[in-house]
């Protein structure tokens, strides 16, 4: 059968295969698809383009490209999660690589022909499907390889998604500068090059990923006999998981944490300049955004690893209590009060580390509650919270800012209101986390059925 090498049975690890080869495979995927966070580097070049008839795109039209990609990330993660559990990570990663690479190439044609619909289809829809498939594909495999450290392993991979922008941004800028200097059409040539490079990089992940053999466990490790009340020794199927209150509580937890983070991310550069007029300029504001992306990435690894020791519930309590207090205090650091740029930056980076930490810790929380059997599929459905937060967060921030601007009120006065709303959202997240209990016995999967999907390819 064509592409049979992608089947799960061909990706079962041989005896002696090191589990430390699996995180680089996952990172190759996440570092690639994390490029989506750097898509804004194409914004100004796209706005400067003119069609043959002289027409140009506006900011709103260009902004939709990113929104469509994130929407399709959530949709595809939710739709294909259950398929991924059956097909295995290698096939899912392969399709993710094709979709993500092809998305760039189709978008390049769209730019060359000045057809926005083609860019929406390419980077937005097809690339977005690649994002969703790629995001969830290594999660359950990592959890199976690292039953002793599920937070650390998934944190490592999801850290890559945060770090992808750090590679994708400068790569795109340097490629565009290079092609411009050679006289080639800069954006299409850059997009095609990036599509090919990312496809190849993701293929490294495809060929490196392995699933553990049935019954494999780390040397010398035994599953703990006495569990925390929240760590289930049973599995829950994806079809049942979303009917549980725990799934929806975790949905609220992810939604509130992400929405609050977007409150800073969405307006980071203008916010610091508005709060410190005359002392922070555009170049420093760009530096601030870079610092946020570093802590967004580092927080993913740090907090997810810490959660292996603190427990997931306690880790999210940290996010909601510490985060709530810090969001409340952040506006006080502005020029009109404490006037401290280092304090503002210090608080913002801690908040962004917890934003990233929220993303990276959720797969291990899901594994604790629902078992590892369908965790990728359940994670995929939970990511719809991210899609919704991606719409609601900017709506809150931009809605309040527009209100202040339209009513000729000082823009910097809008920030305390925005940040206090974010603090309020974290209180909602705190309550949701407080209500999380172990999943009821009626949702547990019959243990005889657990092995079946692993054997479907035989």
């Amino acid at each position: 059968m064509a592409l049979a090498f992608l089947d799960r049975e061909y990706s079962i690890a041989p005896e002696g295969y090191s589990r430390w080869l699996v995180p680089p495979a996952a990172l190759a995927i996440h570092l690639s698809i994390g490029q989506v966070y750097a898509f804004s580097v194409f914004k100004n070049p796209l706005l400067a383009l003119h069609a043959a008839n002289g027409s140009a795109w506006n900011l709103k039209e260009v902004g939709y490209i990113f929104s469509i990609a994130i929407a399709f990330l959530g949709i595809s993660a939710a739709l294909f999660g259950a398929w991924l559990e059956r097909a295995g990570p290698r096939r899912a990663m392969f399709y993710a690589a094709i979709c993500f690479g092809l998305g760039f190439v189709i978008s390049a044609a769209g730019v060359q022909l000045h057809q926005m619909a083609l860019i929406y289809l390419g980077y937005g829809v097809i690339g977005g499907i690649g994002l969703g498939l790629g995001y969830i594909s290594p999660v359950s495999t990592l959890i199976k390889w690292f039953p002793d450290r599920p937070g650390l392993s998934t944190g490592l991979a999801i850290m890559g998604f945060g770090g992808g922008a750090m590679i994708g941004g400068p790569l795109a800028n340097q490629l565009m500068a290079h092609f411009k200097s050679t006289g080639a059409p800069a954006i299409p040539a850059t997009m095609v090059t990036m599509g090919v490079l990312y496809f190849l990089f993701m293929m490294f992940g495809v060929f490196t990923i392995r699933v553990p053999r049935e019954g494999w466990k780390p040397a010398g490790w035994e599953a703990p006999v006495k569990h925390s009340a929240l760590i289930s020794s049973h599995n829950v199927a994806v079809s049942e998981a979303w009917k549980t209150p725990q799934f929806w509580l975790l949905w609220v937890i992810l939604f509130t944490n992400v929405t609050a983070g977007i409150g800073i991310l969405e307006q980071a550069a203008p916010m610091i300049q508005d709060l410190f007029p005359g002392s922070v300029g555009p170049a420093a504001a760009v530096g601030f955004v870079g610092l946020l992306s570093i802590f967004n990435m580092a927080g993913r690894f740090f907090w997810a690893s810490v959660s292996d020791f603190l427990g997931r519930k306690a880790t999210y309590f940290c996010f909601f209590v510490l985060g709530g207090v810090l969001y409340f205090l952040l506006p006080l650091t502005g020029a009109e009060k404490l006037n401290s740029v280092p304090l503002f930056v210090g608080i913002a980076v801690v908040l962004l580390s917890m934003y990233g930490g929220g993303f990276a810790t959720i797969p291990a929380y899901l594994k604790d509650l629902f078992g590892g059997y369908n965790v990728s599929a359940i994670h995929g459905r939970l990511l719809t919270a991210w899609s919704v937060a991606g719409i609601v967060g900017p709506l809150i921030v931009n809605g309040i800012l527009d209100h202040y601007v339209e009513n000729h009120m000082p823009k910097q006065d809008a920030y305390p209101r925005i940040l206090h709303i974010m603090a309020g959202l974290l209180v909602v997240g705190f309550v949701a986390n407080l209500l999380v209990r172990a999943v009821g016995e009626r949702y547990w999967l019959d243990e005889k059925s657990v092995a079946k999907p692993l054997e479907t390819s035989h």
Partner: protein
Amino acid sequence: MDEKRSSPLKIALAWAIVLIPMAWGFSYTLTNALKIFTNGSPH
């Protein structure tokens, strides 16, 4: 046990493949990020 173990060189190479681009992106971003402390005033 005569099982074939993954070579440490192979593991190191796999990590290098992902860590080198990460380090490049990190240093680029950090260099720009430091502008907030060295280039604070508006221009």
